[in-house]
């Protein structure tokens, strides 16, 4: 399923072009009143892209499924929220603490869980996500329980308070682009090649001297850290958190983003995150029945383009090229 990899300096060019596109997007949206709130939506696209990039590394390159990514997302959000509101610490400390906590959790859970295979791993990560969700709901003294808590402060950047949507847009997309760059670098690096080897055959990978458990746990930790970063950004943007955004259905949604975008492509994760974040806006007129549309779209993509939108795109491009010659 792995896509052919472009050259390294080509990657940097691609990221640069993408950054330019992202930078002018709010101005394009601003042209029409109907699309001006798309800047808001794009903030969530960035947040979702960061968590989806982590799962894409784990799923698409290491071949390990996780149905518990929402737990890391929540850990980041609650760490940020609690440290800034209760202890009055800087949001940056909250973000770092969230990522550190998620890394520790991912290591502790990953070590026993990643020895499991296939459906057993799916169940273990699902169970982990549900336990963390229950903690958010029940440790009321710490988390505010089901009703959550608010007044999470905005992020300050060199003394500048980032509270406007546009300001946050540039901040969160800077993070998303850095995560994209790191992820693509991991793919191209020695650990990335080791992961792809594990994906293809664990036995062969072990045979050439790859420490399989270590490689898997490492990438699970990376995915957890990305998830926590996304969660912290969410908390500081929305300024209020309660448990529902961090339930197992969000984990499944992140999985959908990766699969719909294209397994084995980091860019696909970003595409999938964009599509699944904009869909609710476009389907809002269906009200409660938007779930039906989700189900049908997901099934259609799995059925007609199992390698996701990126795969579909490259096949279409291939056909167009064939016509030319």
């Amino acid at each position, binding site marked *: 399923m792995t896509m052919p990899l472009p050259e390294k300096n080509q990657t940097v060019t691609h990221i640069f072009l993408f950054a330019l596109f992202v930078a002018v997007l709010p101005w394009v949206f601003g042209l029409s009143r109907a699309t001006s709130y798309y800047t808001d939506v794009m903030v969530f696209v960035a947040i979702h892209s960061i968590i989806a990039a982590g799962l894409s590394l784990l*799923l698409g390159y290491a071949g390990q499924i996780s149905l518990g990514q929402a737990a890391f997302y929540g850990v980041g959000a609650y760490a940020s929220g609690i440290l800034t509101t209760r202890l009055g610490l800087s949001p940056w400390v909250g973000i770092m603490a969230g990522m550190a906590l998620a890394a520790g959790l991912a290591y502790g859970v990953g070590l*026993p869980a990643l020895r499991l295979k296939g459906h057993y791993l799916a169940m*273990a990560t699902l169970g982990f996500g549900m*336990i963390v969700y229950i903690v958010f*709901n029940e440790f009321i003294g710490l988390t505010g329980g089901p009703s959550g808590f608010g007044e999470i402060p905005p992020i300050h950047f060199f003394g500048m308070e980032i509270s406007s949507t546009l300001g946050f847009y540039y901040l969160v997309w800077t993070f998303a682009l850095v995560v994209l760059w790191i992820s693509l670098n991991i793919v191209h690096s020695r650990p990335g090649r080791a992961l792809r080897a594990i994906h293809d055959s664990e036995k062969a990978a072990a045979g050439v001297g790859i420490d399989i458990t270590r490689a898997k746990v490492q990438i699970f930790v990376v995915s957890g850290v990305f998830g926590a970063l996304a969660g912290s950004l969410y908390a500081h943007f929305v300024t209020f958190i309660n448990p529902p955004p961090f339930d197992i259905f969000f984990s499944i949604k992140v999985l959908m983003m990766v699969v719909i975008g294209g397994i084995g492509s980091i860019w696909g994760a970003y595409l999938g995150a964009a599509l699944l974040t904009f869909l609710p806006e476009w389907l809002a007129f269906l009200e409660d029945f938007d779930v039906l549309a989700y*189900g049908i779209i*997901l099934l259609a993509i799995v059925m007609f383009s*199992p390698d996701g939108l990126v795969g579909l795109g490259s096949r279409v491009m291939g056909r167009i090229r064939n016509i030319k010659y």
Partner: protein
Amino acid sequence: MDSISLGSQVVQYIFTGLTVGAIYALVALGFNIIYNVTEVINFAQGEFVVWGGLILAVLAESLGIPLFFSFFISVGLVSLVGTVIYWTGIRPLRQPTILTMIMATIAISIILKGLAMFIWGKDPYAVQPFVEAPPVTLWGAYIQAQTFWVLGISVALVVALTLFYQHTLTGKAMRACADNPGAAGLVGISSGRMILFSFALSAALGAVGGAIITPITLMEYDRGAMLALKGFGAAILGGLGNFYGAVAAGFLLGLLESFATGFISSSYKDAIALIVLLGVLFARPQGLMGSSLQGDE
């Protein structure tokens, strides 16, 4: 609660746990039936329970059809839903991998849930107990008559399923497909038909679960996902593909939840069941009783 002795409390929790556990066991069996033939985990399994309960509610309560007939019509309709799912959602998959099949069944469960909301709305539905009878008092615990129906029908189903797999030609053919589809094809077994049949059978089991539990717990459109998770947990705990493991694990999960609710707190019942599940998985990666496909992969 103070006036009830510890002994009666324990009896009460045991029966509550066994009732819920029976449904988990049926869902887990449904997972295994499909898994053994196709290696697909059908995450829409919980929706069969919901549809079984809701169709029964419409037939028996709204249309006034006698419960006995409603029960069988409901189970029949849901097994039809199972076959439709296979024809429209699973069979057309190109280059199916485990992951695409998981995603497809998740998509199907979302569609079934949406359809259920479209057809029945968001309110819970009730069904009368199978037989009007006062609760039974056992060692100071009150047990609804319907509880005995749930346990009786579940046990009867497990026995019937065992006999089916061991003594009928279709059952043996399904086991052959599970063991080795290639070899089964060589002796003239149509694996396509067996897969279709496994979907129908598994949907029917879920529907029975929904039909027998609805008189106790009511039924609403969005119960499926949680039931699927619990059933999946039981199937994994018992060892994927292992029938007796699934039944034992289903009852075990039900009892764990019930005792955790009674002695600790209802808010931690899921957490405790899940921690036990994770503990078992980490200690014994093949489930409590071992998987039918042990050594594969």
